[in-house]
């Protein structure tokens, strides 16, 4: 389990949380910067909880105002006419569900070395090339991040307000599209070069010659891993049985 010490100090080797931290940390109001460092890496793991926050709020908001007829308010309150309790409850449920997933993923990614992740995928039978590509893709996020910051500053140098007015969704979208050109073309060229230098160091050697690839690092399942996996499987089985037999039924919230 995560200790308190683990909470305040993320494993600096692990940057897989970038994909999620990415959109938020880059287009953020200035006062958010105390929580998330310039490179988009949370300075403390507490930030993990803040990262899904806006999405969370957005989901609740959208469902509350855009779903269903309003059962509780009438025409005398024109502004809030379409607000709905059912929508609010449903929105909250969806938001919490997504939030839980996001937080799990972020915790996992901030504490786990992507190459160990890749290695375990390989050991579980996924082809080496696939597993390695997955792990190394994760490794390139910091580089992308840096490049994105440069591109953003380059836009500012041109006097462009595209990414500055982040609160205007249309301009923000236009800004993201504009940065996509240098990001995309740069990424394309880089991936070509990386593929080349991988081949030059024998990435395809085992497949072509039939030589067995050896691994320098090794990981094994520890007793704790077996225990966690068994507990997790047990929970899934128990919940499934409870739900299927109707002992534990869903709440009264019915959408329609």
């Amino acid at each position: 389990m995560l200790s308190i010490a683990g909470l305040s100090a993320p494993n600096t080797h692990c940057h897989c949380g970038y994909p999620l931290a990415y959109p938020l940390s880059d287009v953020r109001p200035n006062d958010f910067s105390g929580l998330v460092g310039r490179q988009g890496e949370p300075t403390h793991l507490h930030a993990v909880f803040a990262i899904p926050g806006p999405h969370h709020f957005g989901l609740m908001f959208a469902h509350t105002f855009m779903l269903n007829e309003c059962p509780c308010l009438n025409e005398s309150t024109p502004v809030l006419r379409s607000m709905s309790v059912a929508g609010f409850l449903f929105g909250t449920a969806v938001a919490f569900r997504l939030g839980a997933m996001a937080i799990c993923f972020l915790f996992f990614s901030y504490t786990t070395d992507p190459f160990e992740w890749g290695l375990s995928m390989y050991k579980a039978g996924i082809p080496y090339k696939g597993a390695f590509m997955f792990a190394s893709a994760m490794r390139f996020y910091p580089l992308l991040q840096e490049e994105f910051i440069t591109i953003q500053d380059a836009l500012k140098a041109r006097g462009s307000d595209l990414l500055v007015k982040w609160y205007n969704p249309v301009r923000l979208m236009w800004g993201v599209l504009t940065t996509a050109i240098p990001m995309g073309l740069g990424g394309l060229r880089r991936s070509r070069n990386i593929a080349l230098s991988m081949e030059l160091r024998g990435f395809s050697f085992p497949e072509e010659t039939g030589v067995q690839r050896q691994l320098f690092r090794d990981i094994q399942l520890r007793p704790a891993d077996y225990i966690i996996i068994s507990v997790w499987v047990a929970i899934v089985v128990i919940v499934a049985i409870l739900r299927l037999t109707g002992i534990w039924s869903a709440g009264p919230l019915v959408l329609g």
Partner: protein
Amino acid sequence: MEEKIPLEFKNVSFSYSTSPEPILKNINLKIHKGEFVGIVARTGSGKSTLLGMMAGVIPHHYSGDLEGEIRLYGQETRDLSLSKFSIHTGLVLQDPDSQLFNLLVRDEVVWGLENRGILRAEMATRFEEVMHFFNIDLLKDRITYDLSGGEKQRVVISSVYVNKPSILLLDNPTSQLDPLGSEYVIQSIKQVLETHETVVMVEDKIDELLSHADRLILLHEGEILLDTTPDDFIKHTELLERVGITPPSIIDLSLRLQSAGVNLPTIPLTLEDALPLYRGLMNGSTNIASTPPVAPVKRATSALVTDSSLAVAVREVNFYYPPPQVVHALKNINLEIERSSFVAIIGQNGSGKTTLARCMAGYLQPTQGQVAVGGRNVYTIDIYERARRIGYVFQNPETQLFRMSVYDEVMFTLQYQGIKGAEAEERVYEILQFLDLWDQAHLHPFRLSTGDKQRLAIACIAVLRPDALIIDEPTTGQDPAHAWVIMQLLEQLREHYGITVIVITHAMTLAANFCDRIIALCQGEVILDDTPRVIFAQPETLAKTFVKPPSITQLALSLGLNPPPLNVDEAEQMFKERLL
């Protein structure tokens, strides 16, 4: 059995599938075992293509029309796959970032061994050996993307060398590094040379090739024009000049003096060779009157940060990077930069020069202190006006180009200033004409050559005619001739529009020739701030930044000539006065 020649080219021509023009024409070349061959060429002359053929990259990764035959240890390279190639050859490319794809240095270095199925025990031994060989033991458990450029490139060399390739190919491995980084990488390469492996290296810094290579090849427009020893190579001055290769300044000086009648027995290739030779000459001459050294310029400090007669004023600026790693990047910086001056900011990577530049441009807010541009706090000026006051050109032009044509790219800047119609068109035309890009106005920016992309990036900022223009390493990764052209261009912008130019650079020869002021940063502090001549006369202080004065200046200083010359013309004059 007769030993096979490592690499042999017979009548090789090649053109990429994207262009009908052949990039290499009729290449005949043999590379023998244990040789160190240097390839000298301008950008775009096919040098990387030639090296790529030696590594099998062509025809196996990039396709095109290949004629003639290339043999690697007697085997036709068309029949070998890249994996088979990788048993014999190792290729190190320019950009270390695209050659590192593991998380830890340890994983990176053994990765090639893993693929070859080397057993774990042997992998461990070889890994330890190579880390020790290149003297990078301390980097073992570091994260690859957290390393400095020089460290990265040394890890790349180790991870190629650990596979024991019999031919090591190096494609301009130091071009993107700072002086200290290059120094370390060159040390590593010298280490490899001592093992007498076959090494082929493309390098823009001819000095390094001249002092170490067994053979030098001059490649121009896809043809081999010279293939000879370094001593003979430098004698072909006319040819070198015609293809646009500038010989190292010491050689240039010696040749000029020799033809003027100074009695130089040989032409020295390096500074170390030149020193005793020139010392001998100077002792023989009677005319050693030395002028007194120039006094440092006293800069008047104006108390007001709002003094609008200054282009940029930096007042008591401190900058701390936020946690997790708090870094005190700028320590109490005070600077005044006059209008229409040409300033160079120099220093080691991590010395704070980029942080300072970003504070000047208003991208970063100083933790303490203030930066004023034209008398106004730059951080609080709105983004539109800021662009008109201070421009910033980033190192990699490709991160600054957003539109589909050169014309639109420049127009893009004007659009945010509300400049439209005839006036906008006129301005775009003017700047593109001025920077010699008008003929290519309809092209996609990414189709331009590297030098032209850099020029376009400058055009996009200069079209607003800002008061000051900051340019981050405009010459890194460019060949010396291109670098010279870019600096000339900046000089013209200054003369024509009165723009204050601030360059961040490692190229001392260029700074000496173009800048009227150099600011040296070391660990977040300004350690030197004066004219190039005064700065270079203090090599001890300068050494803290790992920057060396131009070699011609070093030579003169070692001979006691102070104030020192800044370029070959000045040095020629100086030595002629004393020796003739």
